[in-house]
């Protein structure tokens, strides 16, 4: 039982991070139907920027929590700028182009960002300075740290803020309108360029927050870390129904938990026929089954034709 509880805690933390990254994919997809494959790299840049700021301020004598917050704030700002420029430089010129063209550009941007990060931060792993002293709590044989608590609660907070933004504010309304029909929205006086740029900016800000979480959770960062994380988060977004905010959150949490349980129990379930190296397969089997019965994901709405 304590093992199960521990695996659930492991999965929940991982899932919270996946969910935040998945939101970045799903926001952009929901509005312009583009899969922004460079989003994982935006997350990575967020981690790296936060790392740089934190290291620079580590010796300044400021309280650790403040240093961490400054690092987070700078990372968010840098990533917002990055998201905006990505849209402006790589995607807006191709908005009328066939669907595959921006997809290729996205993959290209992902590689460009990886290599830029390699040039700036080097090829080595960098260790995140542990700013918060980790406290380990034990409940019923399972352990968790204060960092994990912070990650899950911060993720929940950010997601609630996002839902408020999309459903209760003017820009949120404009986003939903653009998602439904960009042409009609523009006729109604919505500046769709601005709305789409905002989607990138907000998605990137969420990515930066996720990046800081990954950094402080694993205390490790690398210029290629965004790729796998991005792929997993994309899977989570599809699992939940890409384009749907609640779906991305549910998909992320579900994927994290499935992965943890898969690695933990797949051996026992199959009598050691399949070992923990099949943990990724396990997640994808669930994905396939879900898509078989609900082709547009768990929360996905049936989608009309999209250009």
């Amino acid at each position: 039982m304590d093992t199960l509880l521990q695996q659930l805690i492991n999965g929940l933390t991982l899932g919270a991070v996946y969910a935040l990254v998945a939101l970045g994919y799903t926001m952009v997809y929901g509005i312009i139907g583009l899969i922004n494959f460079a989003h994982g790299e935006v997350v990575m840049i967020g981690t790296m920027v936060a790392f740089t700021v934190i290291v620079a301020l580590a010796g300044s004598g400021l309280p650790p929590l403040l240093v961490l917050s400054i690092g987070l704030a700078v990372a968010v700002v840098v990533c917002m700028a990055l998201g905006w420029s990505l849209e402006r430089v790589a995607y807006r010129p191709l908005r009328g182009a066939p669907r595959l063209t921006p997809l290729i550009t996205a993959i290209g941007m992902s590689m460009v960002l990886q290599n830029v990060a390699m040039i700036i931060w080097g090829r080595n792993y960098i260790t995140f300075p542990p700013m918060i002293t980790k406290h380990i709590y034990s409940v019923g044989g399972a352990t968790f740290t204060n960092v994990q608590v912070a990650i899950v609660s911060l993720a929940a907070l950010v997601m609630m803020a996002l839902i408020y933004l999309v459903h209760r504010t003017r820009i949120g309304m404009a986003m939903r309108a653009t998602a439904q029909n960009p042409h009609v929205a523009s006729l109604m006086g919505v500046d769709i360029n601005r709305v789409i740029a905002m989607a990138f900016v907000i998605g990137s800000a969420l990515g930066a927050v996720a990046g800081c979480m990954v950094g402080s959770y694993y205390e490790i960062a690398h210029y290629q870390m965004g790729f796998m994380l991005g792929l997993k988060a994309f899977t989570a977004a599809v699992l939940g129904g890409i384009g749907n905010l609640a779906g991305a959150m549910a998909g992320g949490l579900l994927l994290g938990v499935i992965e943890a349980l898969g690695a933990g129990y797949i051996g026992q379930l199959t009598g050691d026929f399949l070992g923990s190296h099949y943990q990724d397969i396990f997640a994808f089997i669930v994905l396939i089954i879900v898509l078989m019965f609900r082709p547009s994901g768990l929360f996905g709405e049936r989608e009309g034709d999209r250009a």
Partner: protein
Amino acid sequence: MNHVRIPGVLIALAASLAVIGCGKKEEPKAAAPAPVAAAPAPAAQPEIIVKIGHVAPLTGPIAHLGKDNENGARLAVDDANAQKIVIDGNVVKFELLGEDDQADPKTGTVVAQKLVDAKVAGVVGHLNSGTTIPASSIYNQAGLPQISPSATNPKYTQQGFNTAFRVMANDVQQGSVVGTYAAKDMGAKKIAIIDDRTAYGQGLADEVEKAAKANGATVVAREFTNDKAIDFKAILTKIKAKNPDVIFLGGMDAVGGPMLKQMKELGITAKFTTGDGGCSPELIKLAGPASEGVICTQAGLPVDKLPNGQKFVADFTSKYGPIQIYSPYSYDAVMVLIDAMKRANSVDPAKYLPEVGKTSYDGVTGKVEFDEKGDIKNGAITVFEIKDGKLVTLKSEGGATAAAAPMPAAAPMPAAAPMPAAAPATEEKK
């Protein structure tokens, strides 16, 4: 729309120009060494250029180890050039062609073919067993001598290739030392084994499992991850439930670092052991205080015990910073190739290859001699413990060569060959 199309055309033009440019540049290079080896030049002591290939992952999670290997080779090339070596009447200028295989077996073979096409005289590499083994058949077909400074999987030299050599002990030796150490010296009854599903990690983990079982320990869990993973909590939680005394990781430092931290967070108290891939200063950097008490092995002698190591250590650290693991070995690998060329008085791979097998070279890592398979004779294995953020030598053993059976390598094996520093199988604790 026109203004959009024009840059596209320009880019295409530029790209094709670049391709043409590269092609042109490549041609003379490729042609260069061939006539050089054959035709004796007219001038008194003309200079010829001999290219030596080096392959290691220079990007990706273990790029730091790849760079370490390459720097070792680069230092060797610089030292050799400073000596103005004369082969067949020509002063030889060595050039290192450093390639990146991304620790990926597929890329490894592509890069290997590239080196063959570039007509290198010999290859030092690759770093990982997983890339070295597939690449070795390409070098073999081309008749190119290949010396790996760090690929420890036994299969590499068991393929019957006369071109494949390595300058450190293989995993049969290393695995039996770790497994025996865990079961005997650390007194582990229950051992959990994790590997990263690479040729290296899996091969080493298998050998450790055999040796641990042979010494009376039970393997309570065998878990798997991959060499790019950073989250190990799921498998560690599973292992925690089995309550092992010792956890062994067959994998690299980039995996071991975060794994150690997560073990601590999960409250796992088992001792952590790993092989050479995790036995680096990088592991200490990545794991921080969680690395205290880790037991790990390196194939080879500790740097401070290397017979001719002091000069190497001084030169290397002043030029490139701290040694990670295998740069002394890639240094020696290059020197062994050059030594064979000198003895054969030829830089033609076909002519000097037989001499590589007959090598008896006093390198910075000790005496380098190969057995009939291309493995080093009497390769040493050293056990380290991480104390106060430093790798401290516990003991060194001149391992038994060949021996496919999981024999306890702790058995006293008086070094038969003249291997200066391996002889005293002493135990020294600081």
